[in-house]
């Protein structure tokens, strides 16, 4: 559904759903994350593709997450992810530690409709000891390649991401952020927010087509101006480092986190923060 609303997107995500979110170098749908928190989403299984940041930390602090799979969670230059660090130590969420290429490969398995994908390396890491769903097998081709790790396919219920541009046919332009193609291909549904929806079909222009996820993978699109704030959207606007640093300080305690979220979920405060498009 083109021209849906963020509320409509949120309403499709049942408690307990397996959701996939991109890393901060990609296009994070912060308005959707705020919407999930406002709607008090529960028991979500969050797959970070492959690294979590602000969005993951907020969802953890807001008690939306039951299981977290990630290769790492960090606020980048703003330091450790405060809610993540505390909640994981307290054992309050089911943490599935992974490594970046394992998450990419597990999604590629779903993208290809195969039950697993092989990945080099990793054997000997304690990750393998703790990931009961991962399997090491002997060289199945018998070509002297040795043991290899097999990763089961991960099929998210929902891929959630933000993008600069969509069209009225439901195609979404993400440019070189190809992990979003993989996420959309691998997931049952993709719920997308965009800065702008244009009339001209993106697939009719060779330059845009190369970076466009076709509508067959997209379940619903909602317009969300500055929808990645306070993260940046490459080519559109930068990170709001001050806001992120403020979050990092406030969220050092659960009380501080809750106060910060309350302020920032109320009204359209993010617009007052002076984000330039």
């Amino acid at each position, binding site marked *: 559904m083109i021209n849906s609303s963020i509320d409509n997107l949120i309403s499709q995500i049942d408690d307990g759903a397996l959701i996939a979110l991109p890393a901060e170098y990609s296009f994070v749908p912060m308005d959707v994350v705020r919407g999930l928190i406002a709607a008090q989403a529960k028991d979500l299984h969050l797959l970070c593709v492959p*690294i979590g940041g602000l969005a993951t930390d907020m969802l953890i602090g807001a008690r939306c997450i039951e299981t977290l799979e990630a290769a*790492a969670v960090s606020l980048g230059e703003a330091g450790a992810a405060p809610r993540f660090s505390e909640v994981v130590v307290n054992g309050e969420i089911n943490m599935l530690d992974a*490594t970046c290429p394992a998450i990419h490969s597990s999604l590629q398995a779903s993208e290809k409709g195969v039950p697993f994908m092989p990945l080099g390396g990793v054997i000997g890491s304690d990750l393998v000891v703790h990931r009961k769903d991962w399997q090491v097998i002997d060289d199945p081709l018998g070509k002297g390649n040795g043991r290899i790790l097999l990763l089961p396919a991960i099929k998210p219920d929902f891929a959630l991401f933000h993008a600069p541009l969509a069209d009225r046919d439901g195609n979404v332009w993400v440019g070189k952020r190809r992990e979003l193609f993989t996420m959309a291909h691998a997931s049952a549904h993709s719920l997308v927010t965009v800065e702008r929806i244009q009339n001209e079909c993106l697939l009719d222009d060779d330059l845009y087509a190369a970076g466009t996820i076709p509508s067959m993978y997209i379940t619903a699109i909602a317009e969300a101006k500055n929808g990645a704030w306070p993260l940046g959207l490459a080519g559109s606007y930068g990170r709001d480092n001050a806001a992120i640093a403020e979050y990092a300080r406030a969220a050092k305690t659960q009380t501080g986190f809750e106060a910060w979220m309350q302020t920032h979920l109320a009204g359209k405060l993010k617009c007052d923060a002076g984000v330039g498009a």
Partner: protein
Amino acid sequence: METVSREEFLICAISRLLCTPDICHVAVGAASPIPGAAALLAQATDNPQLRVSIIHGDTNNPFTDGGRELFDCAGQGRIDAFFLGGVQIDGAANINLVGLGKYPETTRRFPGSFGSAYMYFTVPNVFLFAHEHSARVLVPRVDFISAPGSSPDDVARKGGPKYLVSNLAIMEFDRAKKLFRLLSVAPGHSVEEVVEKTGFEIEIAPDVSTTSEPEVEQLELLKRKVAPSLARTYPAFTLRVFGINA
């Protein structure tokens, strides 16, 4: 000569290690400003053919196939050098990026293993970078192996540890003996101090030396040419170390 900061000293030292014919392509993580600066400095110094890819960076980032491309690229054997940190590193070159104490509870949690469990196997020259040279970081045995320093014969492995660099010392990993060998010590420090602050057994190279101070030309190049191009990817670091705004 102006005072040389700790960061500038490390950047220049690492940069020299990167200037070797084996290394044609260095990839650097978005959270690694010192290695990033070192790689760009090596390129600027005397190695214009050196390819430097800063993952997810706003500059020097050639990747166009999404988040998996770095790992695919390493798997193809196209990356010669990469940097890994560690909240703990042990004498067998195992690294821990996950947490202290018994996993999964842990007493202190760090971000996680990132791509280390893969990159350590695929990149021939992995530089380990210790943010602090102490027996708390350089431990006898890591609490969690994010990525192992060596592998048995029945596991395909083209990559592994080459150097361990800290503010105090440069050590080389001997893959046959599976131990670190001290190559050089930072000016003003002693071999004894390094041994004492290293929580595992090391070998001392017969020709152990003092790590060279940055040369004037290196520092000049770093400030004039490298720092500005670094600013968009590592703004906080560049502002703090070089006083340059993105």
